[in-house]
């Protein structure tokens, strides 16, 4: 193995491959920043270029594009509330409020530091244990995934603060309902399509996210039309591009990044989970372990709420290389495209990849350190300029946001029906937001709903309709117990410590 790693180091450090990782990381960040264009489109664009290249260089380039796009994807989530990939939805929960409060530069810097750390920590795990981790990838069955999705849903609690519980619950349910539109995998029957063929594939995540976040945000801005005063503008200018973090802030986010990276990596290793689930779980976990005072900040611009999903999604993205390289199993659309590329280079990933093609296997992992470093060095100096995007006059910025979100959705399917649906959803979202219903629980319910239902029904088919799968596997039981603890803990802690805290106050 040491020989392999050494071969990987020498391959990855060749001038050409360092150039490739830089090109990949840069192209990925740039494409990922555009709302609507995620890692799949970025990689699909690069594949034709890689034909004829040495497979190691090609994979280094493609991997760079992948984590570069995840890195860049947070930018549009933070600046204009337009998460172009499901993995950066949780980033917008606290990132966008921060930007709105005038801390865009700081939010982008935290995202960059978190992404860098997440990616690097994950690369260390990959280097030490990639071949062994294949076993972890195959340790989760449908019932465990079901439990994991239920755990993910507890993140909704973050939006249920102060009298909003019912509203958050209603929106979650709404999201779960939207997830049922389309062909039901378990019976092959179309549900809620009203006989329209455009709905048989269901509603796409991108469409719903763009409509309920970016498009409705732009519309609300137009409706409110609040004039920004000169003083506010001046204050905004001073702060917006500042990257400075205080010592206290660094101290707050450092442990968050550590925890979330480890969690994100292991969730990323599971082929049925991935970056999205990882970011939601990290967000939910961080909120549950925060004290009462910090808890209130979640969803309103919490540093912890931003650092957690950003480290988790990058760590998960590197983690997804475990099942891809060691088993040849893609856990997401993006890794499926990468698998296709690998096969077209004549390389079949699997348990013997690191002995058959050691140069490729190890150099891709080593290049991840270099790539993450390049991303950080490239992006930090650019942040003040990127953040200045918010200083664009609103007459220009808002139509551009609308244009890019509509185009982003249209370019995926080339189906005009999607544009109409999107406009409809954004109008509904505007009304819901005016009456103060939160959008985040809906998108959470929508993303988790489909996976939760499929895994539940699969588990039921496998157990011949018996609910016994809920308690037969230790993994399922463990995750469900954690879920229950997370739900009940606030009550218990209030009962136990609430009085003490109150008496201390007195």
């Amino acid at each position, binding site marked *: 193995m040491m020989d392999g790693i050494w071969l990987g180091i020498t391959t990855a450090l060749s001038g050409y491959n360092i150039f490739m990782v830089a090109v990949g990381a840069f192209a990925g960040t740039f494409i990922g920043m555009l709302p609507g264009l995620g890692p799949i489109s970025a990689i699909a664009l690069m594949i034709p270029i890689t034909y004829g290249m040495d497979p190691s260089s090609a994979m280094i380039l493609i991997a760079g594009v992948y984590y570069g796009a995840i890195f860049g994807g947070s930018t549009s989530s933070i600046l204009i509330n337009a998460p172009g990939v499901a993995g950066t939805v949780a980033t917008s929960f606290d990132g966008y409020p921060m930007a709105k409060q005038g801390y865009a530069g700081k939010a982008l810097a935290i995202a960059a530091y978190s992404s860098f750390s997440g990616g690097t920590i994950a690369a260390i795990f990959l280097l030490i244990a990639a071949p062994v981790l294949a076993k972890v990838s195959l340790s989760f069955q449908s019932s465990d995934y079901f439990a994991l999705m239920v755990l993910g849903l507890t993140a909704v609690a973050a939006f249920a603060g102060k009298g909003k519980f019912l509203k958050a619950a209603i929106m979650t349910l709404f999201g779960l309902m939207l997830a049922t539109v389309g062909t039901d995998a378990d019976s092959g029957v179309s549900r809620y399509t009203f006989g329209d063929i455009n709905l048989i*594939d269901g509603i796409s995540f991108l469409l719903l996210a763009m409509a309920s976040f970016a498009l409705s945000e732009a519309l609300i801005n137009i409706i409110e039309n609040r004039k920004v005063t000169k003083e506010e503008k001046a204050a905004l200018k001073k702060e917006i591009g500042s990257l400075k973090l205080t010592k206290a802030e660094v101290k707050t986010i450092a442990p968050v990044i550590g925890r979330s990276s480890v969690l994100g990596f292991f969730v990323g290793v599971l082929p049925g989970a991935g970056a999205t689930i990882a970011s939601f779980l990290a967000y939910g976990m961080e909120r549950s372990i925060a004290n009462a005072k910090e808890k209130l900040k979640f969803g309103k611009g919490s540093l912890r709420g931003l650092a957690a999903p950003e480290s988790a999604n990058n760590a998960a993205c590197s983690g997804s290389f475990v099942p891809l390289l060691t088993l040849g199993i893609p856990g997401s659309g993006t890794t499926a495209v990468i698998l296709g590329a690998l096969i077209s280079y004549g390389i079949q990933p699997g348990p013997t990849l690191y002995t058959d093609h050691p140069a490729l296997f190890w150099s891709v992992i080593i290049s991840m350190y270099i790539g993450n470093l390049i991303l950080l060095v490239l992006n930090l100096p650019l942040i003040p300029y990127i953040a200045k995007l918010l200083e664009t006059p609103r007459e220009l910025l808002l139509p551009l946001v609308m244009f890019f979100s509509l185009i982003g959705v249209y370019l995926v399917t080339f189906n005009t029906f999607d544009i109409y649906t999107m406009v409809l959803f954004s109008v509904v979202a505007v009304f819901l937001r005016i009456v103060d219903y939160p959008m985040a629980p809906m998108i959470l319910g929508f993303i988790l709903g489909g996976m939760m239902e499929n895994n539940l029904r699969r588990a039921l088919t496998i157990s011949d309709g018996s609910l016994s799968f809920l308690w037969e596997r230790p993994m399922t039981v463990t995750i469900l117990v954690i879920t229950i603890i997370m739900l009940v803990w606030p009550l218990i802690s209030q009962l136990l410590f609430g009085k003490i805290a109150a008496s201390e106050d007195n």
Partner: protein
Amino acid sequence: MKFHVGRICKNVALAACLITGFATSSLASSLDYIHFLIPGGAGGGWDGTARGVGEALTKSGLVKKVSYENMSGGGGGKAIAYLIKTAAKQKNTMMVNSTPIVIRSLQGVFPQSFRDLTLIASVIADYQVLVVRPDSKYKNWEDVLKAFKANPKNVKIAGGSSRGSMDHLVAAQIFQAAGGDPKSVRYVPYDAGGKALAGLLTGEVDVLSTGLGEVLEKHKKGQVRIIGVTSKKPFDGIPSFISMGTNAYFANWRGFFGAPNLSKKRVAALQLVLKKMYSTPAWEVVRARNGWTNLYQPGKKFRVFLENQEKTIGSLMKEMGFL
């Protein structure tokens, strides 16, 4: 909260202008030109087939220029309807499709069938296989069949698409050909082929129904074991179901369709370039890269093949209660 209708209109209009400007593209027309209509998004199987064929045709100089258009929606129905509606303008267009066009038109997902289009040719095929873990209690097809006949509930079969789609139907067809009841096949649907394979390897299911191309290399490396293939003859040492006495043949073809009433001359020209393509080195590169098997059946031959497939799948679906 104040509403500013004028401003809303202004902004919406500006955005609309940008979009129409972006979406309008010009249509070139020449005899040396093929336009590929792809009924699904970038990166899928249809997309790969069209772009692969396009690459081989241009690199070998058989066609001067090609262009691609992705149009997903309605399981491919959107593109079929579009091709029929705009037939007059589509003499250079070839739409890629595969077995699902037969299944989905039987299901009534879309009202059209392959009969409403001009059949150009099938180009490649992939056979279906049943797969087990290397350490599985099932050594071969006979073991699986024995367990199935003892109690069908105990043989859970994974697939990468929903109930009633190809992975399910072909598995049912195989058990039916062996004298079993296709309705009693316990099918466990996964979101994608890769996830179904993960399901097999975690041990929650014992058999996987998938395409040969997806698992052939894994079989050779000993990561999984293929116990049977739906080709007529054994493939690369893998026994075919027919060779084991189970009369189940199935080829998942991919091929091209033209707009309705395409002129005979044009169809013949398109078939000729496709036929010539097979002997070019450019095609061999594309084919080998993707692990495809050639299956060239032009016009009438293609029609007979599709009619047979429709009959087999149709009666199977009827028996299973999907129709």
